[in-house]
């Protein structure tokens, strides 16, 4: 019997736009709570989805979930586009062979271990060899897919950069295709074994996969060439975003219409744009990234809301743990073996397998396909097992990705200036030994100090050390304009009134915003409270220099990760 809240939701028919608003709002709040516990935000989104969805309060009804399907596909398209943007030619030229060997190895590893273990357990339960083998190989094929969305969301959240990050992008981008091919083969073999399903033979199944994958790639590449042609002529960000969103919606919509692989089409679109115009396209990916945050929240909340755990028979749970265990072991061993065979860097051997636990839309979609092709217990069991394990993998997978990228030393290496501004305090960057002048300092003394230092601005203090003004080089220029004036002008005459001050503990971002808003070159740093006792000086020029140096240092560190 459905919960009272579900009945209420189905009868009240909350407007879909209200559901979207609430999902984004509460998903974000959930993410913040989880972030406080140092758990990746994506887990928070999914948990909120679980609470309000089918498995929890049932506040988001079936009809609403149905209405949100196009949004979900579009969000998957955006995620695919962003992943495609990471697949740059130079990366593949350097690591391509290694990544493909690892991909096959981790995929086949998961396939073999899951097939054997789940097939074996199915044998114990059903005592039917054909059914057990069929179930084993289908689950094995589904286990190879890694959810790109939840995985890369962790990479974005923790601003990672380095060879492990690059490998994760490459592997999650491609292993859905591997899953699709393996599923086609497994489903065809299973149909032969069990005498169930629509059959059609192995070659027909492979042909269908080839169409889905090839069609997706061709659609994405064609749209990418067109989009690149347009972006070459559009300079401003607003218009670029409009064209990119338009192209993405067309690719996702056309992909659904033509029944080709939508995520692969969106990835190919991103990869085509990124590789046709590597520099110009950076702006394109930046604008999409800024626009996409609420879409991701909605996507993951809906993923959580979709998972239905209520209608699960007890015996299914007996298969979920072995499936998860086998999939994890298979991926870790496979990735390790593949990295060894490919002589890949050590970080890939050690940590890549840990980053491939997330399971999402592709596995669920294929399981539903299996459900319709194999009516009865096999189909039902596959759908249930994949639903439950998707939930667990989506919750346990992101922390594993976080653990791996942290151990690999890749966290915080892909930062922008804005990220750094948010992470530093004024006290970290200010110049504590910056020269200052007493009010009575003569122009001669001032010039002597300036000749020995490189600052552009100098605070002026009274006898008690409290800030009373600031002298800039511009003010001094005016002091020179008349002969004889320099003999009797003091710092007190040359100083400008203090426009604004800041304290050590405030964020650097706040300081820079205030300097930009008031057109200031520097901000004197003072003690808090009533007294403006000078403790240092924050110069915009020095902040910009520090930011550039830090970004270069982190990128060099990321690109030179050992191995």
């Amino acid at each position, binding site marked *: 019997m459905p919960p009272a809240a579900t009945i209420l939701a189905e009868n009240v028919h909350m407007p879909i736009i209200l559901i979207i608003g609430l999902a984004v709002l509460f998903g974000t709040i959930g993410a913040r709570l989880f972030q406080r516990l140092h758990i990746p935000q994506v887990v928070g989104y999914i948990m909120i989805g679980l609470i309000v969805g089918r498995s929890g309060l049932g506040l988001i009804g079936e009809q609403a979930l149905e209405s949100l399907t196009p949004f979900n596909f579009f969000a998957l398209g955006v995620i695919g586009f962003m992943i495609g943007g990471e697949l740059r030619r130079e990366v593949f030229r350097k690591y391509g062979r290694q990544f493909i060997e690892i991909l096959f190895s981790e995929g086949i590893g998961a396939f073999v271990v899951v097939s054997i273990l789940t097939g074996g357990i199915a044998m114990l339960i059903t005592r039917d060899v054909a059914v057990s083998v069929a179930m084993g190989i289908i689950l094995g094929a589904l286990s190879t897919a890694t959810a790109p969305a939840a995985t890369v969301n962790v990479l974005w959240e923790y601003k990672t950069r380095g060879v492990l990050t690059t490998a994760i992008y490459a592997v999650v981008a491609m292993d859905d295709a591997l899953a699709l091919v393996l599923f086609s083969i497994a489903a065809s073999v299973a149909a032969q074994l069990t005498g169930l399903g629509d059959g059609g033979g192995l070659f027909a199944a492979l042909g269908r996969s080839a169409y889905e994958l090839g069609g997706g790639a061709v659609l994405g590449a064609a749209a990418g060439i067109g989009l690149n042609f347009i972006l070459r002529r559009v300079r401003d960000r607003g218009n670029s975003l409009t064209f990119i969103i338009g192209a993405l919606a067309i690719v996702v919509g056309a992909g659904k219409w033509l029944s080709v692989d939508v995520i692969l089409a969106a990835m190919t679109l991103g990869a085509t744009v990124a590789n046709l115009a590597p520099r110009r396209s950076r702006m394109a990916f930046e604008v999409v990234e800024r626009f996409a945050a609420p879409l991701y929240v909605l996507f993951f909340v809906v993923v959580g809301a979709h998972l239905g755990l209520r209608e699960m028979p007890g015996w299914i749970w007996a298969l979920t743990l072995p499936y998860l265990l086998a999939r994890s072991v298979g991926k870790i061993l496979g990735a390790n073996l593949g990295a060894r065979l490919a002589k890949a860097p050590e970080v890939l051997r050690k940590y890549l397998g840990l980053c491939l636990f997330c399971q999402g839309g592709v596995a669920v979609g294929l399981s539903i396909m299996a459900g319709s092709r194999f009516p009865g217990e096999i189909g039902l069991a596959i759908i249930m097992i994949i639903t439950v394990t998707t939930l667990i993998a989506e919750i346990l997978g992101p922390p594993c990705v976080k653990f791996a990228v942290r151990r690999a030393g890749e966290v915080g290496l892909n930062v922008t200036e804005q990220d750094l501004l948010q992470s530093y305090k004024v006290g970290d960057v200010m110049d504590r030994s910056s020269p200052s002048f007493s*009010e*009575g300092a*003569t122009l001669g003394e001032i010039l002597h100090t300036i000749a020995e230092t490189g600052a552009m601005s100098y605070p002026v203090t009274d006898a008690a050390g409290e800030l009373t003004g600031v002298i800039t080089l511009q*003010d001094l220029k*005016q*002091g020179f*304009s*008349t*002969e*004889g*004036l320099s*003999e*009797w*002008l*003091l710092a*007190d*005459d*040359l100083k*400008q*009134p203090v426009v604004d001050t800041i304290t050590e503990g405030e964020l650097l971002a706040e300081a820079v915003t205030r300097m930009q808003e008031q057109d200031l070159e520097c901000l004197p740093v003072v003690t808090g409270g009533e007294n403006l006792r000078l403790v240092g000086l924050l110069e915009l020029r020095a902040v910009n220099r520090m930011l550039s140096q830090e970004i270069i240092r982190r990128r060099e560190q990321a690109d030179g990760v050992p191995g």
Partner: protein
Amino acid sequence: MEIREFLTPERVILLAGSTKTEVLDELADLMVRADAGINHGQLQEAIHKREKLMSTGIGHGLAIPHVRLAGLRDPLMAIGVCRDGIDDYESLDNKPVRIVILIAAPAGQHEVYIRLLAKASDVLKLEEIRRSIVESDSPEEIYRILTGDE
């Protein structure tokens, strides 16, 4: 920049006092009469605070006390002449001060303030101008010398 933009004949006087404190107060009074927005106490305090840092007697019988004030509307100038000389002004060349030019500018008009100081210093660096001012019998004549001969 012309001196007449900041000086009126009413703000030129022959000083009655003979000490530094007396003449600075006289000029401060003159300035307060010119701009009702000026707080007398605040102006006096600013003038004396600046003198404490270093005397504004810049030599050759000339002193240019100068301040910036928050309540002031426009930059102002007031001039006082003391033919007998002010001995306690502590000027840079230790000679008595005979011409005192008080300059006050609004706190936010830093550039005008410095240019006005420069202008005053520039006009009075010529010895014959300083001499004709000191030898003048009336404020009107002093005003004419300062503004007409520029």
